[in-house]
Every structure is written in structure tokens, then in C-alpha cells.
């Protein structure tokens, strides 16, 4: 039981962390609440399904192509639709909702409303802590950890990362200091969507694909981002761990827990917000008036 809970939590935490880090980055740098974030994750999943099942490409190549496709899609949408509207915060909000709906319907149109699944990359399983863990799980966990470390290194050790963090802290000052704000924002969108794409790519063989699969992760990602503090990376990681663990506990320990997992994690979010209104690691932004 305990092993099940831990393995499940670790897996979900990884996926949530990837999505939440991207979401948080995008909020921090470009000041966009991107409600279409998890829609990109869905698009990546479907892209892989198409490339593997219909076009017959090997999985790693398919993953690479889907990530590139998602990044291109996200950057084009950002430059064409979101960037010119950025001053109108509420308009951006529904632009992203509408965008998510467009993507959902596009997937529905191409692939139908059926539940789809992608064949796993590896077969077999290992036994850890008395729990059967398939190699696919382990592989996924490895990729997740690798990707998160890579993002961390980019943000902390490169000039680009410095620019991203600086812009997230104060857009105007960063611009005054000679950072190209719009270029940084575009690159952030690219990184964030690549993370969403990768998350979608690696869970595709484990989860079931369907056109509405973006909605549930979206609420969870919002909860994590708020719980950890909007714009904070550390917060996203801790938030993802907390929410994933809470979900697993509820699912395994509470009767009818599967219905309550969303309610429980969001309840935790509200509790945290009541105690710390800016989230666990959030910085209270200087009110932008």
C-alpha cells in the first residue's frame, strides 16, 4: 500500500511539476495566465499517437517531432494572438480558453472522441518496495528528473536563465538593463511549451488520450502554481510534490477517493492561501499600478 502510494505520487509529481514549472515561468515572465497550457500537453500526446500508430515512426523520434511541433505552435500563437493583446489581461484569459477549446475540437475532429493509447516503449517490470513498477514508469521518471534538472540548469547557470529570472522579477528594470523583454518572453513561451510537450509525450504511453484530457490537469496545475506561489519555480516543484502525494493518499485511503482527489488538492490550496496569501514561495509582487 505505502509503496503504491509513493510510486504513484512520485510519478504524478513529476508530470505535474513539468506542467506547473512551464505555467509558472510563463506567468512570471510574460504575465500570462495561460489556460491553454495543458492543451499543448494534450496536443503533444495526440501528435505522438499519430506519429507512432499511423505513420509508424519509432517512439523517440516521434517524441522529438511532437515537442518541436508543440513549441512551434505555441510560439506562433503567442506572437500572433497573445502578444498584441497583453495589455488586456482579461482578454488574454479568454483568448487562452478559446485557444484550448480550438485545440480540443481540432483533436476531436481529427482523432474522434475515442479513448486512444500509445504502445509503451519498453515491456517488463521491476519490483521495488514490493510494488510492481513497469520499466515504462521508470523510464518516464528518469526522463522527468532529467528534464527538470535541465530546466533548473538553464535557469540558474545560463545568461538566458538570468534574463528570464530578471524579467520575472521586474519587467521594466530588466528592459532598462538592456534585456530584450519581448525576446525573453518568446523564449520563455518556447521553453514552457516544450516542457508541456515533453510531459504530454512521456505520459502518452501511460495515460489514456482523449480530447478533454487537458481540463483536469489544468485545474491541478493552477492549484500547484498558486500553492507554490505564482512565478516561483521552487514553489512549483514543492507544490507538485504536495498535491501529488495528497492525491495518491486520498485515492488509496479514502472510500470513493477518486472523486475527491481534485476537491482535496484544491482544498489544500485554499488552506495554504488562507495562511500565506502569496503561496508558499511566492514573492508578494509590488502592486503594479
Amino acid at each position: 500500500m505505502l509503496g503504491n502510494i509513493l510510486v504513484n505520487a512520485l510519478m504524478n509529481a513529476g508530470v505535474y511539476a513539468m506542467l506547473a514549472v512551464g505555467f509558472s515561468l510563463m506567468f512570471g515572465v510574460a504575465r500570462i495566465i495561460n489556460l491553454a497550457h495543458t492543451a499543448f500537453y494534450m496536443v503533444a500526446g495526440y501528435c505522438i499517437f499519430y506519429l507512432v500508430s499511423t505513420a509508424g515512426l519509432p517512439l523517440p523520434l516521434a517524441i522529438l517531432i511532437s515537442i518541436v511541433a508543440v513549441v512551434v505552435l505555441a510560439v506562433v500563437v503567442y506572437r500572433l494572438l497573445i502578444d498584441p493583446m497583453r495589455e488586456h489581461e482579461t482578454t488574454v484569459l479568454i483568448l487562452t480558453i478559446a485557444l484550448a477549446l480550438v485545440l480540443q475540437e481540432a483533436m476531436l475532429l481529427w482523432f474522434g472522441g475515442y479513448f486512444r493509447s500509445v504502445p509503451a516503449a519498453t515491456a517488463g517490470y521491476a519490483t521495488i518496495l514490493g510494488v510492481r513498477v513497469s520499466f515504462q514508469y521508470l523510464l518516464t521518471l528518469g526522463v522527468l528528473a532529467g528534464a527538470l534538472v535541465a530546466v533548473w540548469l538553464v535557469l540558474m547557470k545560463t545568461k538566458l536563465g538570468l534574463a528570464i529570472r530578471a524579467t520575472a522579477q521586474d519587467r521594466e528594470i530588466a528592459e532598462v538593463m538592456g534585456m530584450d523583454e519581448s525576446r525573453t518572453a518568446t523564449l520563455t513561451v518556447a521553453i514552457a511549451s516544450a516542457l508541456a510537450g515533453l510531459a504530454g509525450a512521456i505520459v502518452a504511453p501511460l495515460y489514456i488520450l482523449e480530447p478533454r484530457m487537458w481540463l483536469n490537469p489544468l485545474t491541478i496545475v493552477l492549484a500547484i502554481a498558486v500553492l507554490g506561489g505564482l512565478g516561483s519555480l521552487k514553489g512549483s516543484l514543492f507544490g507538485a510534490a504536495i498535491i501529488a502525494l495528497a492525491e495518491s493518499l486520498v485515492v488509496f485511503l479514502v472510500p470513493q477517493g477518486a472523486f475527491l482527489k481534485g476537491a482535496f488538492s484544491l482544498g489544500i490550496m485554499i488552506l495554504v492561501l488562507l495562511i500565506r496569501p502569496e503561496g508558499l514561495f511566492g514573492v508578494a509582487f509590488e502592486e503594479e499600478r
Partner: protein
Amino acid sequence: MTVVRYLNWLWREFKGEILVLPGRSILFFGAVALLALPLVFRHPYALRILTMASIFAIFAASWDLISGVVGQLSLGHAIFFGTAAYTSALLNLNAGLPPVVTIPLGALAAVVAGLAVGIPCLRLKGQYLSLATLAFPIILAGLVMVFSSVTGGELGVSGVTRLAPTRLKEYYVAVVAAIVLILAVWKITDSKVGIIFHAIREDEVAARASGINTPLYKVLAFCLSGLFAGLAGGLYAHYMRIAGPSTLSVLTSFQPIIWVIFGGIATIYGAVVGVFVLFPLVEVLRVAPELRMLLYAASIVLVLRFMPEGLAPWVIDRLERKCPRCKEHNAFTRRACRVCGTALRVPQEKGVPSGG
């Protein structure tokens, strides 16, 4: 004699307050057309669409009140709609109360929900508040699923009494309720309380510095918004004769956001315009069933790309002009302000929206 004088006064008021402005005339004649429509055209499908649109217009206006006017952007407005829908349906089924009683009681439950959401959210600001409100309907939906013996779980509470015995009466109940309630919301935003609401949105710190008890007014706004959304939810439950978990879904929360921002936020009339344009649009798009939602979402994206303020303000900008001296609105045909007589700029420079 008095009757004639009263009618005379009424006509002058009507001419001076409504006919003089194209925007108001459009809304007034729209409402009249809505009331008169069944006299000439009684297609059940069209009546159904307009009934639903009227109910959703109340819902959208209530969202505009809290999110547009007071600026507390709510992403979880379904909590009010769903609470009221379930309360009305359950009271109707279990206690046998008629819709006249259950709808107000449902709205009362939504007011309580407004308190439950509003008080914790006092500590939160901006985006944190929006995302926290998103959580409430999802939590309630989880509880609805768990206590499925009472709430019917996935299937919902069905077999609720009809809103009115015939389709036509249902139509009139919904339309009249929409007109009265939306006017009420609009009057609230225009009253002294409304001015305080606007002040809280524009600058909460300054409002507080002026001696306004902003937390009190924010909770009041949540309750008022809950009240109107709740009335819409009750009407919906009795019209659809079912209250299901879809009333609490994320998409139910997003619908009013789409309508209101499309129509024009913080105006109330924008909410009405948004619903009455977009809701029938979805039905018209049924000609291409597979492409329906795609076209719907794409048209919203495109319209907003070129009218970021929303549809209604964009149209008003073209039909009305603000007097540079007294800030009164004037029809675009006028050369001088109708209140102070100042000459209006003729012609207006192209490409520069007035009042921007």
C-alpha cells in the same frame, strides 16, 4: 388630465434618456422585440434558444458584477449557479415546493455560497484570487459525487417541476426575469454602492484611504453576484428539469467569462450582448456539427484580436461620442453636445478610439 401629463412626462423621459443614445435604443428595442417575438413567431426551437439565452444573460451579468465591475476576477462562478440549481431541485423534489419558492431559496443558498467564497478570498488579490475561486465549484462537485445517494451523482437530480405549465409561459418567465434582474444589476452598478464597486476595481488602496470599508463591500459584491447567479441557476434547474454535475463544471465557470469578455467587460450591457450573440451563434453553427465548437472558439479569438475591449464597447465607440467638456455621451450624428452645447469634434480622427 393627470394621466395625460404622466404619459407626456413618460414620453419625454423615454425620448431624452433612451432614444437619444443609439446604444440604449438598441437595448430597449431588443428587449421589446424579445417580448413581442412570440406574437409572430412561435417556433419551439427558437423559443427554447431565447429562453436559455435569457437565463444565461442573468448568469453572465452576475459574473460581470463581481469580475468586471468590482474587479474580483472569478474563475469559479459555477459554484453559485450549481449551488442554486441543486438546492432548488432538491427542495422541489423532496419538499414538494413550487418553483416560485424554490428559486428564491436556491438563490439564498447561493448567497451563503457567496459568503463562503467571499470571506476567505478577502485575503487574496488579483490572480491568486481568480485561481482560488476556480477551486470552489470543483470541491463541491467532488462532494456531490461522494454523496450520490442524495444528489444522484453523475446523473444529477432529475424530474424537477417545470418552470411554468406551457412553453410560451416558460419563455415569458425567463425573459421577464432576465429584463428585471439585469436592470437591477445595472441599477446597482449605477448607484452609490456601484460607484464604490468601480472605485475598488480602479484602485483599492485609494478607496480604502477614502474611508471605504472595502472588505465589507467586496463580500457584499460576492453575495449580490451570488444572488443573481443563483436566481439564474434556479431558473435553469426548473427549465431543464434537471440539476446535474455539469452545472458545477469548469466549463460552466468559463462560459460567462467568454460571453462577458466577448461582449465587453464591466458594462453589464456587454454581458447581455455577449450572451445574445454567442449563444444563438452556437446553435446556428449546428449546420456544421463537427466544426461547431472550432468555429465558435475561432470566431471569439478573431473578434477579440481586433476588438480587445469587446463587441459592445467597440460598437458604442462608433455610434456614440463623448463630449470633451461634460463627458456625457452623444449620438454620433450630433454636432453639439446635448447637455452643454459644446461643439463635438467633427469628423473624428480615424483609428483613434474615443475615450481610450
